[in-house]
């Protein structure tokens, strides 16, 4: 791209085919290079769903047997069950 040859001045036909490909590939056109080119809305969505999944478990809080265990160990002199 940044060479003197200016590859992006290609015939229109080629350009069209590329655009079409991007549409057909679905909505992640900016990601085609395989790098961190994800669209902002894609990143936001991934982040939201990831947290929703994780928070499903987090929202269960501390299981009773774990809470009991920690309390028991906390009050012990030798710290070993």
């Amino acid at each position: 791209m940044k060479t003197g040859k200016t590859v992006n001045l290609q015939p229109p036909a080629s350009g069209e085919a590329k655009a079409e490909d991007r549409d057909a590939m679905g909505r992640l056109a900016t990601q085609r290079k395989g790098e961190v080119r994800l669209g902002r809305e894609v990143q936001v969505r991934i982040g939201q769903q990831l947290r929703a999944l994780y928070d499903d478990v987090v929202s269960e809080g501390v299981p009773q047997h774990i809470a009991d265990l920690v309390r028991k160990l906390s009050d012990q002199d030798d710290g070993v069950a």
Partner: protein
Amino acid sequence: MTLDPAIRDQVLGTVPSLRAFAISLSGNIDRADDLVQETLLRALAHIDSFQPGTNMPAWLFTILRNLFRSEYRKRRREVEDADGRYAETLKSHPEQTGRVEFNEFRAALAKLPSDQREALILVGASGFSYEDAAAICGCAVGTIKSRVNRARTRLADLLAIDSVDDFGPDRATRAVLAGGGRS
């Protein structure tokens, strides 16, 4: 000696997140709870090596991950299987199952290589900095960044392919709706 209640509360406060991380590692809720329990036993037995004021969650996550690696990973077949079971396990959390999109996301997440999923979860869900995540995983910060990037890219790729039919013509609108639904 009796544990400082402040430290104990920090430990307890980390448990929910620690469980979520353990599930993502082991792919199984029962084993995850065993792992959490072992982690807490070890942590409390060595609580003197925790320096007050430093990052309790990072400390516990590190212990849990090391335990998982040293004990559980020997059963290699099971661990590999965990990638598949991860999706199954999470189906027991039905809150979100009404959403096709959400199920697709879970399936896609289960397809990631475990090191990428781990990095993505530590940074994207547990909320650790890249530096903390690197310390937890015992690798370079750049490695974590790279794993997170690859995980995101792969997820986006999987989701795009899997949801072409469902998404309809306007992905941007769909994304906005999904976002709006959660707020």
